[in-house]
């Protein structure tokens, strides 16, 4: 982590300067506003890091806290929409939380709070194959503990062992726009694949677009991937990613701060971003517009002293405005998985040898005949349609045949509008 301080100091200032407009607007603004600095976090009730308090794990106090956040989810939403800083809200002790948020329902929620049944909560977790890891548990990741508003319980769906490996090892978060371009999706997928193949766990939010592509890439490489959800961990959200969710559950893990059964609400997305930022040693933003939520994840990561990196794009693309802003503010520029590994392990670290997938494609590209090599370079340089590739020296027939060759070799992929993208990892 040498050189880390040098980079993060201007980055942090820059991120705040950029992500926070003068007049805070948009759903994420309250979360990182200048006045969003949370009050000193009150100590969690009766616990020392990693030391069980004699109670059965997960302990009743933490489960009750998680239940309370889920119970007050609608109220948190209101507070958040009213621009109350989310970290400050989530860091409030239980009683103050009820008093501050519940309003007319205060008495009722307090009664429910008193009557909370930890055994029932444990049974509900067991019934949905969810492992609850509370703050009193030695398995609770130290990285997440660094958050001022660390969640009381992390609910892991299906495989807690894999979750621990993700959290203990070197994890990288890949986040970005939902409505991403084919280029962005390809980069996210390629990064996910190469990083997972190098033994790095890929953390993301399973949202549409970049997030899903990163998970899918990691799964393709047979690597470890971790999805942090905004709702209950046993509920695929978004529902259209149900298949991806199943594959992540089977081969990685899904985690959420909320207990099983909890619905995803809007405040849950910036909230889960803080867990992503904390869990990962580095956060890579692939595509983000100027006001993207991914920039919040990046800002949180910088605040936590994690590495922040971004994949560049076309300067004219609105989807790259956010990432270019990050790079201008000192985030590391990512041209491929190797750059991310450099960030994690220092330049030229031996771990690079662990990149069989990227190496394979690179050799495949190197072994190409000169004309195909030239064609793939022209595609990479932005001549991405058949028509753009065809000119007097490159007749249509040859271009078609060449593109088919490259596509068969898995070096380019055809995307919407007949545009071809170079499969990430094939070039360098």
């Amino acid at each position, binding site marked *: 982590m040498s050189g880390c301080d040098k980079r993060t100091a201007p980055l942090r200032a820059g991120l705040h300067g950029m992500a926070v407009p003068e007049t805070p607007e948009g759903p994420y603004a309250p979360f990182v506003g200048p006045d969003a600095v949370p009050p000193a976090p009150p100590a969690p009730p009766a616990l020392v890091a990693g030391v069980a308090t004699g109670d059965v794990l997960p302990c009743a106090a933490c489960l009750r806290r998680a239940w309370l956040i889920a119970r007050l989810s609608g109220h948190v939403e209101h507070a958040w929409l009213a621009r109350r800083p989310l970290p400050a809200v989530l860091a409030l002790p239980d009683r103050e939380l009820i008093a501050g948020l519940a309003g007319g329902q205060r008495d009722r929620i307090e009664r429910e709070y008193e009557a909370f049944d930890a055994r029932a909560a444990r049974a509900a977790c067991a019934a949905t194959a969810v492992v609850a890891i509370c703050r009193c548990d030695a398995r609770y990741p130290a990285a997440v503990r660094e958050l001022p508003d660390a969640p009381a319980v992390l609910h892991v769906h299906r495989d807690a062992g894999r979750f621990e490996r993700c959290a203990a090892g070197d994890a990288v978060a890949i986040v970005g726009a939902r409505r991403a371009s084919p280029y962005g999706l390809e980069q996210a997928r390629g990064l996910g694949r190469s990083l997972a193949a190098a033994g790095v766990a890929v953390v993301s939010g399973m949202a549409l677009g970049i997030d*899903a*592509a990163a998970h899918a890439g990691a799964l393709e490489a047979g690597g470890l991937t971790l999805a942090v959800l905004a709702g209950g961990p046993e509920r695929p959200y978004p529902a259209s990613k149900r298949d991806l969710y199943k594959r992540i559950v089977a081969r990685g893990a899904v985690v959420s701060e909320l207990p099983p059964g909890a619905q995803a609400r809007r405040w849950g997305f910036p909230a889960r971003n803080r867990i992503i930022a904390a869990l990962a040693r580095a956060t890579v933003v692939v595509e983000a517009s100027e006001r993207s939520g991914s920039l919040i994840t990046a800002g949180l990561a910088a605040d936590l002293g994690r590495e922040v990196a971004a994949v560049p794009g076309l300067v004219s693309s609105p989807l790259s405005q956010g990432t270019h802003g990050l790079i201008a503010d000192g985030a590391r520029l990512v041209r491929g998985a190797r750059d991310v590994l450099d960030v994690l392990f220092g330049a030229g670290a031996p771990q690079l040898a662990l990149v069989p997938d990227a190496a394979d494609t690179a050799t495949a590209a190197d072994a190409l005949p000169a004309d195909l090599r030239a064609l793939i370079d022209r595609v990479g340089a932005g001549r991405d349609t058949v028509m753009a590739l065809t000119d007097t020296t490159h007749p249509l027939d040859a271009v078609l045949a060449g593109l088919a060759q490259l596509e068969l070799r898995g070096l380019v992929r055809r995307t*919407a509008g007949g545009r071809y993208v170079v499969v990430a990892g094939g070039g360098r």
Partner: protein
Amino acid sequence: MAAVLARVVTFAIDGIEPRRVCVEVDVRAGLPAFRIVGLADASIREARERVRAALLNSGFEFPARRITANLAPAHLPKVGPGFDAALAVAVLVASGQCPAEALERRAVFGELSLGGELRACRGLLAVAEGARRCGLAGLVVPCERAGEAALVEGLEVVPVADLRALANLLAGGPLPPAPEPEPPHDVGDDKRLDLADVRGHELPLRALEIAAAGGHNLLFEGPPGAGKTMLARRLPALLPPLTRSEAIEVTRIHSVAGLHRHGGLVGGRPFRAPHHTISASGLVGGGQLPAPGEASLAHHGVLFLDELTEFQRPSLEALRQPIEDGHVTVVRSQRAICFPTRFALVAATNPCPCGFAGSERACACGEPALARHRRRLSGPLLDRLDLLVTVGRVSAAELEQPGRESSARVRERVLAARERQRRRLAGTPAGCNAQMDARAVRSRVRVSAEAARAVAFTYERGGLSARGHDRVLRVACTVADLAGRERVELDDVLQALALRLRLGEQEAA
């Protein structure tokens, strides 16, 4: 006037097939009445009024007796006004106003006006073919469209203007001169649509040429206004000219559907572009007495489905059999009717519901809309399309350039390629590469070893279905035909694959 039984032969249209119908009229003593039996529909029952008025207005007598008309065979449903003339003549004969001898080897077909004139009606060509097939010597038809009937060789066509002239003829009057077949008429306006007017679009033009040369199906994908429809409309002019037997088939179908308003043959290949709200029966044929649908009207021509994803699912599903088999069987009320549907399919679609995915403008579609779009495009129909091609916006520089080639020059290459196919496919039912069945693909197409490896490799990687595997070979075969090669080489297969591989997926996951 003795009570006689009169028999006059005419024809009913069953789908697009002519069926011999015998009009029997019996006139006998009793309360005045005129009844028509034999599964006649409302338009035939109304014939009673037309026949009565036409007879009286032509100076004949309408017998004030009990008249029973039977249309045999009685099990065949009959529709349309074409029976009027035969009914009127049968009434004349049965009431003794006219001798019957002249009708022994002739059929009568036509609608009557109240004044007694014979009017043309649908399906005249089919009727004339039926008359020749039944071995009749002649057919009495309305003057108006006698040319259409005259297209059938070996049949004496007798044009008559009205009932009076018809009666004179039967009484032994001189035969009018046989009508001359009229010159062919174009059904489309394709003469004015030339490829020379197209700027840019090299890839879609190449796809059009391949589609024309091999009879392949084609999908254009591209943003609104890129020129998908403009390109599709130019396909008919690239196809080989209709042969006489093809032209007769097309004319017969169009005549049955009431679309043929001239006397002559249909000249150019039809181009049909039904709106996307069309129902399944509108597309493949249907109705209580099944009538040909758009797929049959496009027989030997081009069926263009613009906004493919907007078509109702049942309509698209209904197209499967017509595409695969070249005909469709419509079953209605225990009758199965077969319509020919050998068309070249050209479909067009936007890349996404808003139309701008992958183009310079940002796409404004939500994920559910995109998913729906993909779902509609995917599946069995897409698998039946041989060429999937993107039509992009033409750059300003390309708009300045002159057009590349005229349709006539492209058509020369198409004809040469078709000639190769004809030689190769001699002895098989297939007329062009797209019509080859799996056996013909294996036995008649010579493929180089490395080309075969490339197809096998794609198939194993899951890029092709079993059906797609053969389709790629068929397209590759056409590419080779256009290049003048006897054997399919690797380059041909690669080009076919580049024009075939699945359309881009929006989402990487």
